[in-house]
């Protein structure tokens, strides 16, 4: 699993400011759920497909992201077909697919750091009620950075415990994972400090 989907290209879509892309994503995301007719969604899907071409996203990269979800979409479709109506099934699946494609498009064309910076800017007014945007943005970056590492660590520990027949024992996995995570977090804190991170907002806001 990776969150760093960004594909470096010089296309009009890459050049749109991240704030505009995020806003468009939110608006389009809501729009998709307000459109009641699958027939209206199809041209939208075609439009998104065109944008993928414009953004020069390789087909393989898109397929890799969609593959794990495809199964889920099929289940949703079948469930709706069996219990409500096939039309509704098509509608729901199309909505999800559209939403996913749009989110992917933004991820492929926007650097994570730019996205996080945008979120930091948007949150800035909240500094007045005690929320520190710099901290929120670092937390977001760290989450993106460490989810794959935690997944890897869990995998490694399971492999090690498998050799002892303990790979189904939740304690045998959770305890070493916790110990390693704490140690990692400890060094990480120091590393962040050592590189001069300073979360304090300018004095103007603090006083």
């Amino acid at each position, binding site marked *: 699993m990776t969150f760093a989907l960004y594909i470096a290209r010089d296309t009009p879509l890459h050049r749109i400011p991240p704030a505009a892309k995020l806003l468009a994503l939110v608006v389009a995301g809501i729009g998709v759920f307000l459109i009641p007719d699958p027939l209206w969604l199809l041209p939208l899907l075609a439009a998104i497909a065109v944008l993928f071409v414009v953004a020069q996203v390789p087909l393989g990269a898109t397929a890799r992201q969609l593959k794990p979800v495809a199964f889920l979409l099929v289940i949703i479709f079948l469930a709706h077909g069996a219990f409500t109506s096939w039309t509704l099934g098509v509608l729901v699946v199309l909505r999800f697919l559209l939403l996913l494609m749009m989110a992917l498009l933004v991820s492929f064309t926007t650097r994570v750091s730019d996205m996080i910076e945008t979120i930091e800017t948007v949150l800035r007014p909240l500094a007045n009620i005690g929320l520190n945007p710099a901290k929120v943005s670092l937390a977001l970056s760290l989450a993106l950075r460490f989810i794959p590492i935690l997944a890897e660590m869990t995998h490694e520990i399971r492999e090690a415990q498998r050799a002892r027949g303990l790979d189904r024992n939740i304690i045998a996995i959770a305890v070493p994972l916790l110990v390693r995570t704490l140690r990692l977090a400890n060094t990480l804190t120091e*590393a962040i400090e050592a590189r001069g991170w300073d979360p304090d907002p300018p004095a103007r806001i603090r006083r």
Partner: protein
Amino acid sequence: MAFPTRGQTRYVAGAMIELRDIHHRFGDRIILDSVDLTIVERRVAIIGSNGSGKSTLVRLLNGLLVPHRGTVRVDGMDTRGEAKAIRRKVGFVFQDPDAQIVMPLVDEDIAFGLKNLKLSKDEIARKVEDVLSRYGLEHLRYQATHTLSAGEKQLLALSSVLVMEPDYVVFDEPMTLLDLRNKKMMATVLATLPQVAIVVTHDLDMLSGFDRVLVMDSGRIVMDGPPATAIPHYVGMMS
């Protein structure tokens, strides 16, 4: 940069770290006991058994840790009050590369420290480019950091520190987790650093080019000299 020498030993003009009468405890345990030390040499190694206090000592050098007693001065500035300025002067490379890469992408991680220095976007971009090409990391620029090899990760960790242009770089066992080839690569990078380097290590093979070796035992510096005298002393201690 040229280094003036005194005998065999190389110095960096004007650079100095001073530790005066350092005592440090964790709970009741004394971890550092009356350490006095002045560092002016260009390559200083710290060796000693596990738990002898090496990591604790080097954490004092950039204010990550403030001693319970005594003072640490970097170019005259006290780590007790001027931690922020000292962080700019003293870079720190840790043992575990995974634990010191902060950002999801390679170039973002290099930019992290520069953003903390509040440099302009253009300046950040220029410095990132510089360091990427200096250490041959250009092709990894947009790669997710968790997908790098251990050697690449440690090289990135070092690049992310060096891009901030510190005057001193502290390494706490920078090669312990690396294979032989990457150890050699790191040793080469280390040898060519213009900065003062203070290196904690268990790897006695890499010490030949050092100007000074400190041997620690139970929180004290028990030997202080050139590699040719300090290493045999340490080996004797261990056997």
